[in-house]
């Protein structure tokens, strides 16, 4: 009876995984041993080395052997939690663990793997899972690691995004009258989706056009501007008071900016103007000249008719939008929180970086805001099977791509890149890191993970490689496979930390047991900026996904394309949006 209740109670979810209910023996064991049956075990466990796996504590020279047969070479030895007797379990041979469970009075079924610190039921002959046991293991590992983790810039405000029920809106009579009197319906003649408009090349500005096309169809950004959240006329009036003369020139922001200086510069206003133009229904190519001019003022070092890097432009223009807001509000905003400006609200996430000293296990953790994630394409394949430990030159960490080499030989995938991005990396003898606890430079282990996912993830593939040895740069033309649908769960800090501790049931960095995490870590592809050509001369083209149809935006020309063309393209910047039911690029959002 009580075991049934326990079972039910135990069927919990953790990080989108459902754990099986405990076996009757574990339920009984828990019932007999009170609320904290495994508390005493914490002292019996330790991590073998800093960052290593947990095991049962013992003398280094002590050889654990099976109490029944004296065997020590068996791979699986289990210590009974009731009497600490060690027995072996080596199917298909005899299982002395099972014998121990049956020969003793009830209560000796549960055992701990000596080398792995995992729970086993000797009667059921299977691995079992228990939240309290796992908590004891994690705590023992953390204490062995001198848990004095410093958290230099811990984002204190880590509340989950509030979930608001989506309610479709339809205008009532009053709204309708207001709308009809204040506006005229836009005419979308063709069956092309709204907002598809070519952008004229203003002299090597395909780097800008390609990124703008992606931004113009970034769902949260589009919704922001089209719902008039940044009104350029209003913005101009509000900010014009201080330094404009009273002649009240209406569209100083969109019109000529001659009279005004940098104080007037507002990239968001130019974005607003561009959104209006692009979604106006006019299909003739649009010239984003005003925007280009404003951007030149913002990034004067890049102001020329030369070819530029699309990613550099992307970063610089997001900065431009952010800076303006910063100036306006004069409020200290933490960028990572993403509530400062529309650019960061949409694109900013938080990266977590852990550096663990290999000598003492001291871990220092830092959190950094980011607006995109730059990923290395491994430059060569197969790699030497040797020395992943010593050779950690960051440009050549392509050795032995564990995920890809197994199944689809030779094809790089975005997931493979993300795996490498979040893989622990040894900072060997040549890259020693100062350990605060040892007070000297030590070899250490560095690992990146994603603390907070942005609404829109932009992955920048590092195709332009600079070699300091050869003193030359080159472009990597390697093909990269990217999925149309991407689950970011494995790269989250909570998942990375969990796997570091052996996938225990324990709440790690930022996951709450009942949070609906799995919903927000699903992403869907909506834009790909591709590059063809060489390092110094080439062309950018963007593929956009609207209403589950792909369009190729090549400066002024927009054409419908097959998705296979997109899959085969050489992605340089790949944009994903969080899957939410009202933002699906795969579906028609304009339910008229």
């Amino acid at each position: 009876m009580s075991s049934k209740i326990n079972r039910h109670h135990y069927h919990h979810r953790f990080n989108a995984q459902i754990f099986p209910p405990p076996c009757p023996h574990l339920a009984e064991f828990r019932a007999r041993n009170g609320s904290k049956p495994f508390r005493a075990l914490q002292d019996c466990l330790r991590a073998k080395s800093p960052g290593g796996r947990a095991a049962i504590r013992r003398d280094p020279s002590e050889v654990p052997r099976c109490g029944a047969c004296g065997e020590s070479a068996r791979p699986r030895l289990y210590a009974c939690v009731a009497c600490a007797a060690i027995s072996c379990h080596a199917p298909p041979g005899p299982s002395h663990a099972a014998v121990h469970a049956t020969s003793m009075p009830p209560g000796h079924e549960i055992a701990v793997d000596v080398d792995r610190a995992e729970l086993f039921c000797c009667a059921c002959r299977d691995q079992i899972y228990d939240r309290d046991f796992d908590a004891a293991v994690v705590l023992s590992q953390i204490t062995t690691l001198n848990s004095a983790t410093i958290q230099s810039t811990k984002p204190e405000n880590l509340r989950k995004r509030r979930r608001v029920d989506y309610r479709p809106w339809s205008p009532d009579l009053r709204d309708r009258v207001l709308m009809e009197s204040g506006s005229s319906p836009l005419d979308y003649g063709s069956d092309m989706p709204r907002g598809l408009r070519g952008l004229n090349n203003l002299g090597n500005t395909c780097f800008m056009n390609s990124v703008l096309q992606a931004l113009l169809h970034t769902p949260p950004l589009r919704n922001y501007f089209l719902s008039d959240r940044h009104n350029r006329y209003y913005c101009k009036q509000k900010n014009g008071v201080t330094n404009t003369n009273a002649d009240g020139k209406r569209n100083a922001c969109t019109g000529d900016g001659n009279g005004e200086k940098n104080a007037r510069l507002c990239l968001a206003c130019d974005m607003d103007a561009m959104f209006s133009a692009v979604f106006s229904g006019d299909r003739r190519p649009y010239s984003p000249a005003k925007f280009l001019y404003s951007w030149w003022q913002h990034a004067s070092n890049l102001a020329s008719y030369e070819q530029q890097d699309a990613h550099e432009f992307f970063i610089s223009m997001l900065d431009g939008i952010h800076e303006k807001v910063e100036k306006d509000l004069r409020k200290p905003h933490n960028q990572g929180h993403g509530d400062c400006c529309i650019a960061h609200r949409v694109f900013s996430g938080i990266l977590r970086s852990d550096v663990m000293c290999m000598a003492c296990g001291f871990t220092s953790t830092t959190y950094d805001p980011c607006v995109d994630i730059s990923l290395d394409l491994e430059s060569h394949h197969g790699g030497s099977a040797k020395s992943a430990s010593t050779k950690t030159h960051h440009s050549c960490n392509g050795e032995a791509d564990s995920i890809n080499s197994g199944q689809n030989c030779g094809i790089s995938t975005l997931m493979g890149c993300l795996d490498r991005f979040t893989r622990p990396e040894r900072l060997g003898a040549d890259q020693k890191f100062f350990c605060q606890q040892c007070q000297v430079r030590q070899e250490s282990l560095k690992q990146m993970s994603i603390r907070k996912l942005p609404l829109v993830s932009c992955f920048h593939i590092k195709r332009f490689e600079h070699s300091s040895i050869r003193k030359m740069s080159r472009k990597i033309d390697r093909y990269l496979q990217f999925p149309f649908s991407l689950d970011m769960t494995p790269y989250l800090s909570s998942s990375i930390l969990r796997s570091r501790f052996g996938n225990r049931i324990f709440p790690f960095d930022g996951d709450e047991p009942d949070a609906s995490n799995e919903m927000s870590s699903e992403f869907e592809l909506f834009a790909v900026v591709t590059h063809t050509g060489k390092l110094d001369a080439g062309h950018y083209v963007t593929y956009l996904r609207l209403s589950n149809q792909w369009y190729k935006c090549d400066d002024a020309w927009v054409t419908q394309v097959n998705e296979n063309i997109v899959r085969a393209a050489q992605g340089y910047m790949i944009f994903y949006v969080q899957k939410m039911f009202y933002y699906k690029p795969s579906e028609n959002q304009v339910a008229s």
Partner: protein
Amino acid sequence: MTHKRASVKRPPTPVADQVHAHSSQQLTLQEIINIKLIESGEKERLKELLRERLIECGWRDEMKALCRAFTRRKGRNNVTVDDLVHVITPKGRASVPDSVKAELLQSIRSFLASAI
């Protein structure tokens, strides 16, 4: 019960004369080597090295995929760890790259040379 907990603290060390009785009788060379490997901590190091190599060469992912496929076929509630071990052991043994085997063998050899 508290008395039981106290006994959990540490796995019992086998009684000394028992071990001696055991060792004096029939310890094979293999057993002696095994004990030497464990006592010196070399076994841990070798295991760690092997684990690293098997991850690098994709062996572990291959095994993971096999386990996944098997679990999917049987249904997630009808699979035990023993089943999985049984299924992947032959394939796992066969697919360890020769280079990894050679490296490990070399490490064991040099350990033995230094220990004897």
